[in-house]
């Protein structure tokens, strides 16, 4: 047996062994003539026990028991502290889990580290889509890739109802196998499906889709379903754990090679960009992949000079970090870190609050501590005891915080319509939880404990808790803590206020155009191979039918649906901070959408689509510095068009965006297959939906056209901002209530410290106002400083969150002022209530108190 094993053996049998020593010592004393010479038996027994080295354990156990007893005796303190900690830790962990799953952790697929996404780059443009033929050429002609995966998502009509749209991904046949997933039922695609484009059409269902639409029917395999009105056979159900790539929420999957079966005459395989992923060969780094792809890219550009430019290259991005491109990654992280800073601020406020709670509790026990110190307890021992209590609270808080974080992240992911992610805490989350806990321990455990240990306890024993003055320096730390809480809640409230204002702006919605009575018809003619003259005829028929309807006020064809999805944006060297959406329209578009022409004129049918352009006010101002540009060339450098008019700003895609502008051209004759139709109803847009569908079907019954209210697109754009604003407001209010609790505590404590002084003052005839002033004066500095620092930081944060996706406007003071008003009012209330209690002090009782 080694010494350590003997120690442990002793620990396990310590009661019996302790008794044995006691027994043999007793029998020794009985045998002695003069037992005095034996020494102090109790001390010797302790000495004998300490030999085994378990003293620290005994003490810790004592501390824990003492701590538990202390918490049990003041359950309201324990409960408050526990709730505050759970909230603070939970909030931070929620954010961390979201960031962890989306940005830190690689996607849950086979060998994620050798999986990359390729995007097209050149000096003048960046494109996330790679043309399908190019992906196939690169697949065959390279030395660095083991496999190439492609994916294109679009909405398809499901079953017999054209209005029933489901999300569909067209993927290369190796998609599931490369990502390491088989089917939950049936089978996934196999390579044969890629080889033979005329193979029987097949479809895979997502697990959720199978549950909701097929009621988990295992007999679904080999059943025939209809997609875009074409029959296809279900071959399998994808496992529920399949994460997809880039948070894809597809409900059904179809082989890429069959895309023109479902979208007759689809050009996807010939022209359209798809998402291109690849599996790198072993040992190939990102930069090696970039270099290794260059010959193939150059060769393909040589073959297809009309689509590819000379200096073009493919940029790989790693699977961790959500396959984000390097430039986006930086933006994403800035936002994430700012939000993390805000949630950390909540934790700091929570801890500052707890710190003063712990401190005031400890202050009530000063007498106990000084007596124990006088009896020979070490200062360290007392610090340890205070820390143990904090640790107990922290442990409880960490456990519930973790649970809270898990649940909240899951709920949020569902609310934000993310695919089902596995939020079970991993080592990163555990580590984050522990560091957050350690951080809070330093703030709310160690700080007050050290403060207590430093105090001159002998003097505090002399005058107990009722010193006649000198309360001021004793509350210094607490005032600092209150200042911190005020500053923190100030920042959070202002940010919440700014968000609420942002939402209000959004709701009051002057997006620069009026969408309320507008209906959209989107037949995606190109997907059905209806092109050129046929497409023109199609629109002619639809238009004719709809124009006759009495609900129709006006109609316009347009290439970019307002409030729809962004198709392409350009950044001009003359205005690099603007993303410019180009939309091809016809003259009716502007009056229909109620977008004013601020200068110059609207298009005329006689204008040449190649040489005329209308730009939005913001674009004119940023690019030329003035709105006086009608007749000038566009773009500023190397112009190829003449500006004929300036349109009002209309944030067609991102409602709140301030970094987006628009340019309009007439659509060109060959563009009919890419257009969609918008119609303004006189009063009841929903009455236009059915006629629209009918008109579309009559124009060409192969096409399942999708008709919808533009209002719905607006609603769905609102969802995320609504949720964010709600969360920010809740967090802001909770932090505010913490700060109020802190103010309340400080004043109450000051009142209890100075009962005697107040008694004397009242006895000498002090007026209530002067006593209130006396008490509230000590709040002045912490609160004022807190507000100044908090507002300053909030301005910085607000400015930094001025862009995508929050678009806070710091120069819109209504939100900030409302937040400050709320802060000052509730804070004042929290101060007045306990201060008024001081006025009710009976001087006789106060003086006799000792």
């Amino acid at each position, binding site marked *: 047996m080694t*010494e350590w094993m003997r120690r442990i053996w002793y620990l396990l049998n310590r009661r019996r062994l302790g008794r044995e*020593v006691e*027994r*043999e010592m007793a029998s*020794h004393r009985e045998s002695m003539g003069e037992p005095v*010479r*034996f*020494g102090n038996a109790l001390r010797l027994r302790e000495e004998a026990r300490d030999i085994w080295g378990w003293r620290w354990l005994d003490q810790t156990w004592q501390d824990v028991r003492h701590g538990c007893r202390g918490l049990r005796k003041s359950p309201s303190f324990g409960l408050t502290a526990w709730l505050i900690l759970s909230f603070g830790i939970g909030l931070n962990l929620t954010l961390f889990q979201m960031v962890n799953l989306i940005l830190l952790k690689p996607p849950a697929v086979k060998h994620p580290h050798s999986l990359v996404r390729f995007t097209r780059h050149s000096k003048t443009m960046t494109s996330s889509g790679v043309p399908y033929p190019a992906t196939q050429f690169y697949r065959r002609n390279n030395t660095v890739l083991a496999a190439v995966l492609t994916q294109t998502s679009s909405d398809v009509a499901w079953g017999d109802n054209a209005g029933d749209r489901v999300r569909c991904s067209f993927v290369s046949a190796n998609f599931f196998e490369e990502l390491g997933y088989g089917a939950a039922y049936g089978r996934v695609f196999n390579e044969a499906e890629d080889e033979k484009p005329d193979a029987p059409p097949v479809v895979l269902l997502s697990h959720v889709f199978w549950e909701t639409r097929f009621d988990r029917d295992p007999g679904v395999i080999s059943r025939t379903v209809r997609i875009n009105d074409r029959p296809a056979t279900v071959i399998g159900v994808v496992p529920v754990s399949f994460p997809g790539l880039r948070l894809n929420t597809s409900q059904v999957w179809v082989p890429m090679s069959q895309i023109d079966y479902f979208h007759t005459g689809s050009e996807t395989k010939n022209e359209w960009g798809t998402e291109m992923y690849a599996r790198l060969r072993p040992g190939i780094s990102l930069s090696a992949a970039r270099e290794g792809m260059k010959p193939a890219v150059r060769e393909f550009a040589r073959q297809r000079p009309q689509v590819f430019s000379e200096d073009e290259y493919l940029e790989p991005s790693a699977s961790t970090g959500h396959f984000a491109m390097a430039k986006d990654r930086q933006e994403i992280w800035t936002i994430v870190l700012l939000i993390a800073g805000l949630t950390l601020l909540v934790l700091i406020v929570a801890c500052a609050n707890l710190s003063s709670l712990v401190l005031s509790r400890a202050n009530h026990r000063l007498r106990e501590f000084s007596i124990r110190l006088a009896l020979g307890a070490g200062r360290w021992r007392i610090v340890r005891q205070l820390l143990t209590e904090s640790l107990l609270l922290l442990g409880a808080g960490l456990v519930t915080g973790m649970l809270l974080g898990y649940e909240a992240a899951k709920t949020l992911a569902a609310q934000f319509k993310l695919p089902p992610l596995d939020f079970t805490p991993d080592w990163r989350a555990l580590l984050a939880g522990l560091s957050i806990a350690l951080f809070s321990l330093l703030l709310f455990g160690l700080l007050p404990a050290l403060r207590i240990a430093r105090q001159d306890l002998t003097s505090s024993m002399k005058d107990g808790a009722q010193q006649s003055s000198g309360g001021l320096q004793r509350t210094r730390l607490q005032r600092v803590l209150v200042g911190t809480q005020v500053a923190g809640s100030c920042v959070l409230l202002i940010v919440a206020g700014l968000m609420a204002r942002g939402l209000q702006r959004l709701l009051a919605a002057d997006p620069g155009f009026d969408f309320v009575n507008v209906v959209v018809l989107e037949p995606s003619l190109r997907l059905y191979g209806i092109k050129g003259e046929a497409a023109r005829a199609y629109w002619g028929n639809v238009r004719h039918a709809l124009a006759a309807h009495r609900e129709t006020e006006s109609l316009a064809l347009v290439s970019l649906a307002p409030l729809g999805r962004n198709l392409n944006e350009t950044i001009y060297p003359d205005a690099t901070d603007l993303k410019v959406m180009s939309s091809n329209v016809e003259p009716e578009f502007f009056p229909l959408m109620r977008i004013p022409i601020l200068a110059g004129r609207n298009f005329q049918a006689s204008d040449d689509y190649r040489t005329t352009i209308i730009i939005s006010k913001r674009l004119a101002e940023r690019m030329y510095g003035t709105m006086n540009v009608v007749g000038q060339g566009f773009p500023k450098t190397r112009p190829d068009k003449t500006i004929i008019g300036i349109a009002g700003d209309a944030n067609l895609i991102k409602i709140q965006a301030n970094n987006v502008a628009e340019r309009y051209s007439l659509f060109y004759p060959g563009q009919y297959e890419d257009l969609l139709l918008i119609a303004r109803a006189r009063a009841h847009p929903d009455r236009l939906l059915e006629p629209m569908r009918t008109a579309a079907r009559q124009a060409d019954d192969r096409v399942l056209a999708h008709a919808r209210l533009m209002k719905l697109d607006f609603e769905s754009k609102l969802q995320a901002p609504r949720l964010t604003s709600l969360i920010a407001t809740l967090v802001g209010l909770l932090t505010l209530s913490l700060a109020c609790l802190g103010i309340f505590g400080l004043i109450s404590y000051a009142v209890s410290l100075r009962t005697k002084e107040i008694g004397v003052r009242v006895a000498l005839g002090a007026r209530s106002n002067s006593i209130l002033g006396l008490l509230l004066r000590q709040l002045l500095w912490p609160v004022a400083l807190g507000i100044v620092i908090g507002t300053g930081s909030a301005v910085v944060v607000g400015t930094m969150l001025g862009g995508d996706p929050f678009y806070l406007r710091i120069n819109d003071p209504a939100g900030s002022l409302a937040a400050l008003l709320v802060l000052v009012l509730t804070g004042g209330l929290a101060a007045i209530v306990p201060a008024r209690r001081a006025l009710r002090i009976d001087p006789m009782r106060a003086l006799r108190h000792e």
Partner: protein
Amino acid sequence: MPRETGLPPGTLIMLILRVLRQEPLHGYAIAQRIHQLSSQELQVEEGSLYPALQKLLLKGWVKSNWVLSETNRQVRQYRVTSSGLKQLETEIAEYQRMNLAVQTVLETT
């Protein structure tokens, strides 16, 4: 431990091992034996024997078991182990080396 024991510091453990080398003994007897063998010169604060014995147990230099004494009471008897004997040898050697050194200093005129 050496508080008022009248023993040179650090020697108690050596003495216990030394008296246990002859025969297993219980606590009281160990104190008695040290007292006797030192011609009544060394006086142990007898209680301090027990922390020392615990240390010996911890180190594995002695083992103990409960037996009936000659006066017919339950006593705990200690006996030295082989590693205890080894320890005794080193401690004696060390002690003599020290002693010699001290004496050399004292005898130098």
